[in-house]
Structure formats: structure tokens, C-alpha cells
């Protein structure tokens, strides 16, 4: 697991629940790690254990915690960077959905060793979309759901996102775009504000 992902998760836990629970979690892992470095790589099993432990300590189901994490990535000022990079994907929500197919490629351009699951999007018409990622771990589904809902708010769109299981494994989501311009959205200036 790339350190950037773990550090984003750390930022989520710290901002939502405080520094003390995070410090206790890292110590509880007993992995000889004092802090996670964003540019290092960590064992996937360790990352999975971190998520399970966090959910246990905070008394939340894994899924709910991961979905909150996905929301945090877009909605919280601390991860404005992630929101901006996602907003570069499209001028409206439909455009953004289509850009998800390029997401892993875009991320690779910026950080070559950060490998995200490949996403494929099928447009069924009438605002219905099916998202599928064959190589994604199951934890990816709630994170992506949270992120897609938060991005809809960001664009001012109204959507329904639902996980739909499938026999072939991987992650399947059903997305229904009810209204592309439901609210004002947060706006997006191409130029980054100074500082």
C-alpha cells in the first residue's frame, strides 16, 4: 500500500477523531513504525489491519468508516488537494464520471509508483451508470462510494450510488445521476489560490 494512501487515512482519522486515537492505533499495530511516510510503501496486510483496528477502536463498522474516509477525501479542507485533482477530471459530474477511467493513469503521471485499481464505466443511458473494477480489493467499494457522493455535492449534482455485488468479485457500483445541476456546488478555479 502506498504511503500516500495511508497518510490520507491518517489525516482522516486525525481530523475526525483527534491525534490521540491515531497515536494509540499506530502503537497498537506494534509494527515498529512510529509514523507513516507518504513516499514509502507499506505491506497491504498492515494497511488492512490498520483499517480493522481503527474501526474497532472507534466502534464503527469497517464499511461505514471507509465510506467516511471517501467523503473526507473530497469534502474536508485538509484534503483539498485530492478534491482539486479529481475536479481536474471534468467540467461537470458526467464528465468527471467518465474521467474515472483515466484516474489510475492520471495518478501514475503524478506519482509513478502509486498504482490505483483500473476503473471501467458503462453508460446505460438515462443517467444510469455501472462502475466496475476487477482488480480492486473489496475495501475500495465503500471508499469510492463515499468519494462519488461527495463529488456529486461538490459539482452540485444529485446522485444515488449503490454497491451491487457480483459473482466475479471486484467492485461493482450502480450510479444514477438524478440531476446534474441540483445545487450550486463548490466551484472550481483552475488556478490554485496562492499559499
Amino acid at each position, binding site marked *: 500500500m502506498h504511503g*500516500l494512501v495511508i497518510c490520507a487515512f491518517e489525516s482522516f482519522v486525525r481530523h475526525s477523531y483527534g491525534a490521540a486515537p491515531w497515536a494509540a492505533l499506530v502503537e497498537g499495530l506494534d509494527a515498529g513504525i512510529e509514523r507513516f*511516510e*507518504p*513516499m514509502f510503501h507499506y505491506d497491504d496486510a498492515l494497511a488492512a489491519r490498520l483499517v480493522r483496528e481503527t474501526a474497532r477502536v472507534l466502534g464503527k463498522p469497517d464499511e461505514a468508516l471507509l465510506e467516511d474516509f471517501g467523503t473526507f477525501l473530497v469534502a474536508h479542507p485538509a484534503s483539498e*488537494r485530492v478534491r*482539486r*485533482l479529481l475536479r*481536474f477530471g*471534468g*467540467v461537470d459530474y458526467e464528465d468527471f464520471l467518465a474521467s474515472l477511467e483515466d484516474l489510475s493513469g*492520471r*495518478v501514475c*503521471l*503524478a*506519482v509513478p509508483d502509486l498504482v490505483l485499481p483500473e476503473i471501467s464505466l458503462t453508460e446505460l443511458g438515462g443517467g444510469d451508470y455501472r462502475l466496475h473494477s476487477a482488480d480492486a480489493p473489496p475495501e475500495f467499494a465503500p471508499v469510492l462510494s463515499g468519494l462519488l457522493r461527495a463529488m456529486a455535492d461538490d459539482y452540485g449534482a444529485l446522485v444515488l450510488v449503490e454497491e451491487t455485488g457480483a459473482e466475479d468479485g471486484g467492485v461493482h457500483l450502480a450510479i444514477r445521476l438524478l440531476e446534474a445541476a441540483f445545487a450550486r456546488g463548490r466551484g*472550481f*478555479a*483552475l*488556478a*490554485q489560490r496562492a499559499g
Partner: protein
Amino acid sequence: MRGELPIGLGPAALDRLMPMHLVADGDGVITHAGPVLGKIFPAGGVVGARFFDLFEVRRPRQAASLDDIARRAGRKVQLRLRDPDRTPLIGAAVPLEAGQGVLVNLSFGIAVVDAVARFNLAGSDFAATDLTLEMLYLVEAKSAAMAESRKLNERLHGAKATAEAEARSDTLTGLSNRRALDQTLERLIARAVPFTLMHLDLDFFKQVNDTLGHAAGDLVLTEVARILCEETRSEDVVARVGGDEFVLVFTRLIERSRMVAIAERVILRLEEPVRFGDREARISASIGLVSSLNYDRPEATRMMRDADMALYVSKDRGRGRVTFFDEAHQAKAGPAMDAALNRG
């Protein structure tokens, strides 16, 4: 030629393909401008203005008219806006059919990052095929990645400085350093483990440095370190505490006769000449010893001072000698002894 029939494109189609283009007539007056030019000149008035009043052509230098530029179809045109920032632009110009004028397509080139902020451009201001958005994305992502790398570097730099400050070994000889020695003494005293402290000072080392040079001196020090390690057990500590000063801690070894035997053997071995090229370096050593059992409540600083004093008595007695601190009282105090006392 087949496949090369002229195609007619209306202004709306051109605006979509090239949001930052303009058409100027034979007199250089702009007759149509793409939507982005409206953002660059928010006060309006682009259509109807003279091309050269809005833009300054930098290259090709000798271009006096748009026709000049258009005739160089395919060549890049470098321009600047006649605005306070003199915003740089690049363009490509082609002549239109039947004297309808010239079409100029513009772009910000590498200055796009600033221009996007200056003219408050949005994603929809760029053609779908334009890679500007991808470039802006990359600029931002790279800056973020660089910021993380820089933070990591700063942390590593700090960690390195800390590690150096907390180093426990002497870089030349690999022996323990003063800090490690202090920690050992503290630990032994806290646990009431009996030990003997040996303070060893090389004799004639300065002469080796002076006559054979520092390389020979370093070689001698490395040899000394090797011998001291060979003559001690793994639980003992050998520390280099000064240029040619060493302190050895013998854990649970307090038998006086054994300590004297060890000290004398160490001196004998140190007196063996060290070959340096075709020359030989010869040194000896003086030793002061003190046992922790001499004290009701041993203290590291006091023991170090007492071992130092015993050492100076050894020096006084003619070098290559071994002295126990409690014997030092009986020895006649000489000038070196006075020096040691004054130092304490």
C-alpha cells in the same frame, strides 16, 4: 486530389475547436474572435479592433502584416498581449480562401499557469482535445508530490543530525565514544555492578604524528583499538575519549592482580612496533586504574577523575607504568600529578 476537398466551417464550429482563435481581414481588422478572447479582453471591443493594436508580434521579427505571418504557414508565431503583464502567447496563422483574411489560433504556451489565474479561465475554456487541463493537473500534482518529498527530506535530514548527535561510537576506531561510556558507567553504578575503570593514555603518540604524519597516527590508533578489543572480553567496554586517550570498563572484574596482569599485557602489546610503509611507529602507554569497590557510593565523574590521577602518577613514574588510584596517594606527587590535581 481526393480527400482534400475544402471544408466549410461556421464560426460556432471554429469556436468549439479553437476557443482562442480570431479572424482578421486583409486590413488587419479583427472580424471574429473565439470566446476565450472575450475573457482576455473583458471590456470587449476585440471585434473591430486592429490586430496589431492588441498584439505585439515578437517573432518573426520582420513581420509587418498578418499576410506576412500567414504566408509562413506552419511556423510558430510568438506574440505578447499589449496588456500590463505583456502576457506571452504563441500562435499559428493560415490565410483564408479568396482573400477573406487570416485565421490566427492562439495559445498561452508555457505561460498558461499564470494566464489561467490572470484571466480566470475554466476547464470549459479549453478545447476538448487541448491538453492544457492535463498539464495544469500535472503541475499541481507534481507540486504536491514535490512538497511531500521535501518534507521527507527535511525529516531525514533532522533524523541524521539526531543520529549523529546520539552516535555511540568513535568513527575512526569504531570503539565506543564518550557518550556510550557515560551510559555504561551510569548503568553499572545504578545496578551496583562492581567494575574496574582503566584510563589509558598513549605515550610517544605525538611523536608518531609529528614525524610520520597523521596517516601513521590514524593507523596506530586503529591498531591500538584492535589490541584493546583483543585484550578485553565482550562484556567490557573500550572507549576512545580523546585523541590518544582511552577508557576501559571491566565489568565484574575487580581482582587487583588480574587487572595489573591485563594492564601490563596491554602495554607490552602496544609497545610492539606498527609498520607504516618502510618505517615503524613505536608507542607505549600509561595506565591508571580504579575499582568501584573503593567507594561506598561510586560516582562516574569522581571515578574518572581518580583514574585520571592514577594515570598521571604512572606518567610521572616514567611511562609504560600501571598505577591503582589508592596507591597513587602513597606515590610521591610530581609535576604531572599536580597538573592532574589542578585539572580536577
